[in-house]
């Protein structure tokens, strides 16, 4: 089954005439991703790699039965593009670019909080359901179909992990890079819920990072019994000096959460196997898969 996207998902690409759009759109299509249309204001009528370009999402939707969006517009224009896609009812919306102002994203999350839209990112490498569809920067050759779901806050580590698993002969159901920004549209917990419901997924690899509390929330979710499949985790940034802390608000808001140690401890208390090095992940996964 995979989660979120498969070979039937029909995408449009916002920002298709930019450098990233022109580089990635053809590569995704070649893998099999259904990209029916592109959107770039002022470029309506152009063609990119055989894909027709429109000025607005509304115009593209009037001509093509698209379900989902891949968003490759730069950070300053990201809120507009994501709102446009959400208002057109597209889902999932995969926001790949970095540089989106954090308040723009906070506003957008609030704005869409009662909406059914699934927003991945921003600053995400995208996601892949191997053998079916890729939306974003993940190199498809790093992956192969199989029973392991990947959720990751890091872009490159998403496919580095897939690559390590593939080298060990372990394929993936879906690999999702949720995005490296402090506020993103979809959390680890959101994706664990989907992987729990996906019969094809037998285990999940979770790649966290220092900062924020998303790993602690995932640990609490697992500990509460809402996710029952094996989880292997890695938390990047053990050697990263704690960001220069100034002011008291951070500590008052976050309490003792957010550090490498707090995340590893919370995950371990939830029964998650935490790898010290990324390269340890495949054997930890292999030991936990049904054979």
């Amino acid at each position: 089954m995979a989660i979120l996207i498969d070979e039937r998902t029909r995408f449009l690409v916002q920002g298709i005439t930019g450098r990233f759009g022109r580089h990635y759109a053809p590569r995704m299509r070649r893998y099999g991703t259904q990209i029916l249309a592109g959107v770039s204001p002022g470029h309506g009528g152009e063609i990119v790699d055989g894909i027709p370009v429109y000025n607005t999402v509304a115009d593209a939707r009037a001509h093509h039965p698209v379900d989902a969006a891949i968003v490759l517009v730069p950070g300053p224009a990201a809120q507009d593009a994501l709102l446009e896609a959400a208002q057109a009812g597209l889902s999932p919306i995969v926001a790949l670019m970095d540089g989106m102002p954090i308040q723009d994203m906070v506003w957008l999350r609030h704005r869409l909080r009662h909406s059914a839209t699934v927003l991945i990112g921003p600053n995400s490498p995208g996601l892949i359901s191997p053998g079916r569809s890729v939306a974003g920067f993940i190199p498809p050759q790093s992956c192969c179909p199989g029973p392991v779901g990947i959720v990751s806050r890091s872009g490159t580590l998403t496919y580095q992990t897939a690559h390590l698993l593939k080298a060990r002969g372990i394929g993936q159901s879906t690999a999702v890079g949720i995005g490296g920004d402090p506020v993103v549209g979809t959390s680890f917990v959101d994706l664990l819920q989907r992987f729990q419901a996906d019969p094809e997924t037998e285990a999940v690899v979770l790649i966290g990072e220092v900062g924020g509390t998303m790993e602690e929330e995932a640990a609490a979710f697992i500990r509460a019994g809402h996710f029952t499949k094996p989880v292997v985790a890695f938390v990047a940034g053990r050697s990263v000096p704690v960001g220069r802390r100034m002011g008291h608000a951070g500590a008052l808001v976050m309490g003792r959460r957010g550090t490498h140690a707090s995340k590893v401890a919370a995950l371990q208390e939830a029964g998650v196997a935490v790898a010290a090095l990324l390269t340890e992940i495949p054997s930890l996964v292999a030991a936990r898969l049904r054979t």
Partner: protein
Amino acid sequence: MWLTEHRAKSLCRDHGIAVPDGELAATPAGAAAAARRLGCPVVVKAQVAISGRGKLGGVRRAADPEAADQAAASLLGTRMDGQPVEAVRVESYLDHGDEFYLSIGLDPTQATPVALVSAQGGAEIEDRAGAWPDLLARLAISPVDGLRPYHGWQLVTQARIPAPVRAGVVQVLQAMYTLYRDLDALLVEINPLAVRADGEVVALDAKILVDDNALYRQPTLAQERRLSSAERRAAQVGIHYVPLEGDIGIVGTGAGMAMANMDQVTHFGGRPANFMDIGPGILRGGARVALEILLERPDLKAVLFSGYTAGPLERVARDILAALAAHPQRALPVVVRLQGHQDAEARALLAGASDPRLHLEADFDIAARKAVQLAQSHTVPPWPS
């Protein structure tokens, strides 16, 4: 981007929040002159964006201009918590009673701004709030609604701010939210907000953190940003460079990969000299600038350039060769591991260059271990200064 206390206070004043009169001084004589203009006693405060500045001796009271001169002389040119003290703020000392804590910040867990108010402010707020959580009133703010006067009244009521000064604190909270919103801030903190004998509330310290992603629409603040030339070069090509104190340079495709590289180097006994994220390698010249910045650092003993990307690795390889060619004298070993799109072509290009400084590896762990080994066995040759 952290604003200096001086800048933060001038913004507070522009938004109607009372602050002590103060001036910036870059020399002891300037501090003395400022003290004379302001009238003594004054407080001389190191303008560094660090926590616990007071405990580290960065805030000195001066009874007369000569004392201000001495306080400035003892602060200027030193480093506090790694940060150079390039200026001091000289400001009028104000007698006061109660000290409150106020902040508007981002709660990343709830993805919402959050306002915090305590009637017991000061440097020990964290410990006190840990011990007595009731001391801290907390309210999530809808970014659509903003912080309304009634939110302010809810906060001051819950925090048991004394009735006579509540209206004043509500006004300060609203001004802080306006600053937070209009500056694209991630934090606006006033600690302490002091109550004077006449009931006026005055911000004795102010900290503002602005979102770097939003600096494009904060042109005034962006101009004031202080970056080293290396940080500036990196920012110009859209890559992210943070220098650290180790000796192994790090380049990663993406922030997570850069961090994982640092973790591995540390794991194998090395010390990362920096964080460097070049993204997926799409940005023209990004890899070249990244490597050149590291080649130009005389304190490095090895570089680990390790990445995985669907970007054009051929171009990345050419960037690496161009950086090395631009620094032919720099005998710094560079371990390169590149995986992903065009990795075979990239490896062929690099191998074909036959640069003895280049060490190609295919395995993630082995590349990191190799960089550590090379750094340990490496004697840094003299660097032309």
